[in-house]
């Protein structure tokens, strides 16, 4: 009994270790030539551009909902003028980054996991290697980099669409003008709210890319294994995003204390 639990814990730790090494190796190899620019661009397109509609639409809906919530709570204090600012702060600081991270880990994490898993079980990864191509660099590093690039961009799109959605909700209720809304939205946002929160999503991108690529590379047992990899990628990536977010938020408060 204890032995089994112990073994399970050891296995989990080993896996965490492997994923971390995988990620670190990816970061290191990203810096060493040869660079796979073409592939990175292709994946930025696949991961970023193709996720943009999903993110934009979600951001829009979240903006509307957040606006209604902030209105409900701020109205009580007679602070309706703070609605745009409250919404912008909430979106930019936390909601935008986190929701984007979760959505991307769903769409992209599953995609990468399944794609690489399928390549693994059909020996395409071996075929790459046999063609004297560094499969790790060609497949994993490029995807991880693309995730790192795409996440902050997608977050910005989410933030922007959220603020626009908030504006639509607000203007139908109070008829506030576009200029006033934007001015108020940014009235309380500091660089310290915006830059670290947006940049931390690069870490989310790193997490999504690394976990999905790692699981893809370690897929076994045929098509069934591919399905499992895809699911596990989403679960693990979402979980790690939520957990790492706690650490990142704390770290940001520590490094940029004025945000508090």
């Amino acid at each position: 009994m204890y032995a089994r639990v112990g073994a399970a814990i050891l296995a989990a730790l080993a896996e965490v270790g492997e994923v971390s090494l995988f990620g670190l190796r990816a970061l290191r190899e990203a810096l060493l030539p040869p660079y796979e620019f073409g592939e990175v661009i292709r994946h930025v397109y696949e991961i970023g551009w193709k996720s943009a509609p999903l993110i934009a639409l979600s951001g829009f809906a979240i903006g509307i909902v957040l606006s209604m919530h902030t209105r409900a709570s701020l109205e009580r204090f007679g602070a309706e003028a703070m609605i745009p600012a409250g919404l912008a702060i909430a979106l930019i600081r936390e909601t935008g980054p986190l929701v984007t991270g979760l959505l991307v880990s769903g769409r992209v994490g599953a995609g990468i996991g399944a794609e690489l898993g399928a390549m693994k079980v059909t020996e395409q990864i071996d075929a790459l290697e046999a063609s004297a191509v560094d499969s790790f660099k060609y497949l994993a590093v490029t995807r991880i980099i693309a995730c790192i690039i795409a996440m902050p961009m997608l977050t910005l799109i989410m933030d922007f669409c959220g603020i626009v959605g908030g504006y639509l909700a607000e203007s139908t209720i109070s008829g506030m003008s576009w200029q006033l809304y934007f001015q108020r939205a940014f009235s309380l946002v500091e660089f310290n709210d915006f830059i670290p929160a947006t940049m931390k999503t690069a870490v989310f991108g790193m997490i999504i890319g690394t976990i999905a690529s790692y699981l893809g590379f370690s897929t076994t047992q045929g098509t069934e294994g591919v399905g499992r990899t895809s699911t596990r990628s989403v679960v693990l990536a979402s979980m790690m995003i939520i957990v790492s977010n706690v650490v990142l938020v704390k770290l940001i408060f520590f490094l940029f204390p004025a945000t508090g």
Partner: protein
Amino acid sequence: MVSAKVVGAGAFVVVGLLLFTVALFFIGERRMLFTDRFPVYTEFASLGQLEMGAVVRVAGASAGEVTEIRVPTSPGGKFRVKMEVREDLHQLIRVDSVAVTQTEGLVGALFINIQTGSEAQPQVPEGGTIPSREPFAIADLLQQASDTAALVKETVEALRGDIETAVSQVALTAEDAHGLLQDIRPDITAMAKNGTRISDNTQQLVARINAGEGTIGKLINDDTLYVRARELADQSKEVMAQSKEVMANVKAVSDEARRAISDFRSKDGPAQGLFGDMRLALLQAREATSDMADNMEAMKHNFLLRGFFNKRGYFDLDAISPDEYRKGVLENGKRKAMRTWLSAAVLFEPGPEGTEVLSQDGRARLDSAMATYLKYIPSNPIVVEGYATTGTTGERFSQGRIRAGIVREYLLGRYELGPSNTGFISLGNDAQGSPSDDKWDGVAIALFLESAALQFVEVAK
């Protein structure tokens, strides 16, 4: 095949970078990183919650931010606050401009407002230092006002005795000299009235200030409020000074009166000069008491106290006309009036000089009326309505007022009610809803009860 993807990826990155730049620009614009700015300093002994990056405004216009806060080198020193201010507002900031910390809205962040200086003063130089006003604690000011008001109350109580003796002595004197009576009666009446007003107002003020401080002080920290609180403190000081003057004047009057009496009774008959002195003293005393009463009135209407009490549902009956009162301004919202009608015949018996005083029976009736009300006090205010049916309209109102005043005085004394939520008003003879045909001769005690409580009362009946 490749090119479409490259374009897509490119578009994606461009959109992202664009949004990033726009956001940076928006934030930067607000913080005016891209406009010409000049440094100016100010110093605070206490920072409140002022932080780096706090917004700086000049006469309310968004002007820049706090870029540095230097800690004092010794406990007696001040925090030196560096502000970066938009160059185009420079000419508004003169060497006598004052920097004040204010709060944005009720719950907003602290910012520094620089008031525009005076035309005659030179512009503050770049890197110069302007005076500041410390973030104040409104509670301190209210405490000060409260202390002064309490002092005033004591003085006024002592004073009241003096005024009464003065008046009675003057009256005594006047009894002996009928000719004088006509001349000084207005002075005496006015003084007596002022005396009542002063003592009334003092009581109310002390109660209001005590109830108000602490609550408001903790909630709001705002410049208008500061001004009001300062005003209140100043007003109470002034009243204090006046009360001393009144004391002196009244003393002079009673002295004069005593002298006049002894002179009058002396064999030589009254000395004309003495009467002249006495009239002068009377006049001065009348003016002093009247000024003091006015000042206290103003103090009572101070925004600080009024605002608070209006919100709590208390009313300043002095500001309400009988007409408005009848239309039910006090009943607005959730309150409804509950009245007990008491006729003059039961309440009063004739007193000296054609006045009315409360009869034994009257007191008993009032007590029984109050018995049902007491549990709703002080959360529900009481108004004593005075009515009279004889004489001209003016006489009816004045008699109604006197009756209501007497009853209120009795209730205040007997039940230690708060003066601020026990009002009185004269309504002449127009008594809608009275037991006798919309006319009433006497008083009605109206309890303004919250509807919820009212229902409960009716069921209980």
